[in-house]
């Protein structure tokens, strides 16, 4: 796998404020990297630096082997960027706008029409070509922004919060699109919506206060998420001693009335036993589910301690 983006010890200062502090990472072809972080963590600053809209205070960024500061045009040729606010000209129609973007990226006349058609069909904009951008909804404008980023078939696509302002169906479509794009292109997806990362990314990076606090493959992260606890809920009050006596159960924590969190050893799963006991003792089993740490908890555990001493 070839490395498409290399970010080496990049920092960015705005006056005294350090927005991005010495971050390094790389992306290979065919990876979908989720770039997570709370508001103001430095996500957008990093994206803008990779796309050459901001110059790093120190460090270097290489795209396809070209330094973004020294060879900007060569580096940007392989780049498709959707900024936070889609860069649209409201007075143009969708087709006019996409044609302009194609020309900016140096597409030749014969290819431009095909590229526009492909971009529109991928982003669900077919039949919207003659509409004025100003008259379209936020969701459609966001789609035009994405169409613009993938128009010239770049090997790297950078999307800064692409699903903001979309309705749930559109969000699902866009996530599907991102997964598809990930097969042929490298994608960096910046977001603060966690399920989005879980659904569409192959690798996750969490940035907080300008520093990367976690960088891992999504499978490893999922493994971290499964833990050894169950949540049970009964209709009648169970005998806690009987529950505790089940093999492998280490701790029983009452949550609400008749609802418990049961910690157990990793090797054994007491779910079956609990169900049998509940039926035998007529406790009225209402809920029995393995507890999963979700991304939110990992995210919070990584970002919270820092917040507290500010």
């Amino acid at each position, binding site marked *: 796998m070839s490395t498409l983006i290399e970010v080496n010890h990049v920092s960015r*200062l*705005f*006056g005294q404020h350090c927005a991005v502090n010495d971050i390094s990472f790389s992306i290979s072809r065919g990876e979908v990297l989720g770039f997570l972080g709370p508001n103001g963590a430095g996500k957008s600053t990093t994206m*803008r630096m990779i*796309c*050459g*809209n*901001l*110059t790093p205070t120190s460090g270097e960024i290489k795209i396809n082997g070209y330094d973004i500061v020294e060879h*900007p*045009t*060569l580096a*940007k*040729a392989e*780049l498709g*960027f959707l*900024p*936070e*606010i889609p*860069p*649209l*000209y*409201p*007075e*143009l129609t969708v087709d*006019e706008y996409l044609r*302009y*973007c194609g*020309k*900016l*990226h*140096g597409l030749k006349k014969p290819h431009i029409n095909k590229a526009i058609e492909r971009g529109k069909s991928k982003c669900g904009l077919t039949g919207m070509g003659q509409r004025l951008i100003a008259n379209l909804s936020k969701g459609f404008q966001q789609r035009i922004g994405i169409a*613009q980023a993938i128009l010239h078939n770049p090997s790297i696509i950078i999307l800064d919060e692409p699903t903001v302002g979309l309705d749930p169906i559109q969000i699902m479509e866009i996530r599907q699109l991102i997964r598809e794009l990930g097969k042929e292109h490298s994608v960096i997806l910046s977001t603060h919506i966690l399920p989005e990362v879980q659904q569409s990314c192959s690798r996750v990076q969490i940035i907080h206060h300008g520093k990367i606090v976690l960088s891992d493959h999504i499978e490893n992260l999922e493994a971290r998420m499964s833990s050894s606890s169950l949540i049970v809920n009964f209709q009648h009050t169970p005998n806690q001693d009987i529950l505790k006596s089940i093999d492998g159960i280490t701790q029983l924590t009452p949550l609400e009335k008749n609802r418990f969190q049961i910690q157990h050893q990793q090797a054994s799963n007491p779910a079956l036993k609990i169900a049998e006991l509940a039926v035998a003792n007529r406790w009225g089993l209402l809920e029995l589910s393995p507890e999963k740490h979700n991304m939110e908890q990992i995210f919070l555990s990584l970002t919270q301690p820092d917040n507290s001493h500010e």
Partner: protein
Amino acid sequence: MNSLPIAGRELRSLFLSPLAWTILGVSQLILAYMFLTQLDYYLSLQAKLAGVAGSPGITDLIVAPLLGNAAVIFLLITPLITMRLITDERRNKTISLLLSAPISLTDIIFGKFLATFVFLLIMLFFIALMPLSLLTIGELDSGKFLAGLLGMILLLASFAALGLYMSSIASQPTVAAVASFGTLLLLWIIDWANSSTSSSHLFEYLSIARHFENLLQGLVKTSDVAYFILFITSFLILSIRRLDNDRLQQ
């Protein structure tokens, strides 16, 4: 030429807004009225002039004043056309589309400049049609006329370059318009200072009007042409530097 798509889009947006059409219409109307009064004035003098040898002809009495008036009108309207060039891109965040595309800052600035210049040339074309209509009834001093046109072209390019620069430093279109109008007006009247002092030579050299008047009189001097070309290139380079500064912002 990577700047052509930018120039094309800019012109298109300009003509999609009512601003361009209003400016074209209003300026043409005013200049046509000025042209007619000038023509009237000439006709009233014609009888007296006929007897004098070496008296000024149509070109001196109609074309030169018309172009001179047109220059002042351009001074007023060019800031209105240039004010949005960069400020709007910044405000609508469309600038990031240009900055992440594989084009250089020079292409961006040159494209913007080209769009404004082409628009101003379209206006100049319609203005030039008025003196050309005199060919049906008489003869023009084509040398003087062409020198005047050259002066106008250089003047318009200078106005466009300065307006573009002001648009690149200002944060709001109106600020850009006021700043470019103020600067142009100052450069236009700077030679009004008392001509007896030594510093007035510098002021005379700085004045746009001085250099333009020479060309209008049919006097094509290298120093005047060089002044305009220096003026245009300096402000274009300054605009590129200013745009580059956006990426380095602290």
